[in-house]
């Protein structure tokens, strides 16, 4: 009885090795699992996690009236602890009006300009990052739960294609590193599996909090490709694919990364 079972496992392993690509669900690890214990401790303790400074700023902005409407976020949504719990786990989501996917930052911007009637905040501005971090923080510990929306599927497919397409002067795709070589190191740094569970997150290298798009821009510059525009459809498609890929993993916002 034992031998057939053992050979079956061997066969399965072979099959796994042959189709290099997707990471097996049991092997998925958050970027934080690759960090030094000191950096993990920094993220775990809210009094030493610098990302909490933006959560604090976001909490202030949540209650601040803005724009022609004279209303704050809290004026409609109430206490974020209840109303925003799980929100970040579902984004990017389908924007019913345009029929296109929209990310969390985009939704906050939309709410601000269209409903609050306030001047738009720049996409990577401290204030917009702070509100996004504050909202995403309300989902900390919850599993990533991409919406089961068939109209998003074509965008997810676009995202998957972008992820697996070689680009730039170095001619590398995201998958070359993050699917096939995540257990290796690149010039001393862990490669990681590129799960977007901690964003917006505090990077010690940036000395600031930053968005997932900023991180992807970094990677694109790294392979010497021209980065997509901030807030572009390509980035949102990639984000959709990454969230699908990380479905079920716990949200960590605000994460800390080296």
């Amino acid at each position, binding site marked *: 009885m034992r031998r057939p079972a053992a050979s079956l496992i061997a066969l399965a392993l072979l099959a796994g090795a042959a189709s290099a690509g997707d990471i097996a669900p049991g092997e998925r690890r958050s970027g934080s699992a690759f960090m030094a214990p000191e950096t993990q401790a920094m993220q775990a303790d809210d*009094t*030493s996690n610098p990302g909490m*400074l933006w959560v*604090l*700023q976001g909490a*202030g902005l949540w209650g601040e009236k803005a724009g022609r409407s004279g209303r704050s976020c809290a004026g409609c949504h109430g206490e974020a602890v209840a109303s925003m719990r799980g929100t970040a786990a579902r984004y990017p989501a389908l924007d019913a009006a345009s029929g296109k996917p929209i990310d969390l930052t985009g939704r906050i911007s939309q709410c601000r300009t269209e409903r609050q009637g306030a001047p738009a905040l720049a996409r990577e501005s401290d204030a917009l990052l702070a509100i996004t971090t504050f909202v995403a923080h309300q989902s900390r510990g919850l599993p990533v739960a991409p919406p089961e929306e068939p109209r998003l599927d074509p965008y997810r497919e676009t995202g998957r294609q972008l992820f697996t397409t070689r680009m730039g002067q170095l001619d590398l795709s995201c998958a070359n590193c993050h699917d096939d070589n995540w257990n290796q190191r690149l010039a001393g740094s862990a490669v990681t599996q590129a799960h977007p569970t901690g964003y917006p997150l505090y990077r*010690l290298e940036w*000395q*600031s909090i930053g968005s997932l798009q900023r991180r992807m821009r970094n990677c694109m510059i790294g392979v010497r490709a021209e980065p997509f525009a901030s807030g572009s459809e390509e980035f949102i498609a990639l984000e959709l694919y990454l969230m699908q890929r990380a479905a079920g993993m716990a949200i960590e916002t605000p994460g800390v990364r080296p």
Partner: protein
Amino acid sequence: MTRALVSVPKTARRGEIVDIRAMIAHPMETGYRMGPNGAEIPRHIITRLVCTYGGDEVFAAEFFPAMSANPFVSFSLIAAESGTVSFAWTDDTGQTETASAEIVVS
């Protein structure tokens, strides 16, 4: 708006050694960097942190350009009596930002 996180235990026994932590949002611009137009970015750092406990200075630190942005400081204190633990960060521009927390000693 001051963005600072201070961590002081709410309660402590008399004579207990407690951990105090404080972090403030600040760019800590070194003055050694150049902007995109080649112009120097002027230095803008916090130069001094003073912590008082019940009105008495118990901890002070001088900061220099090598400190990271959003500086984090941790030290310990002997809980002597109930009172306020206050922090004051002063930067190059002379601006002082403050934060405080209460500790109840029994």
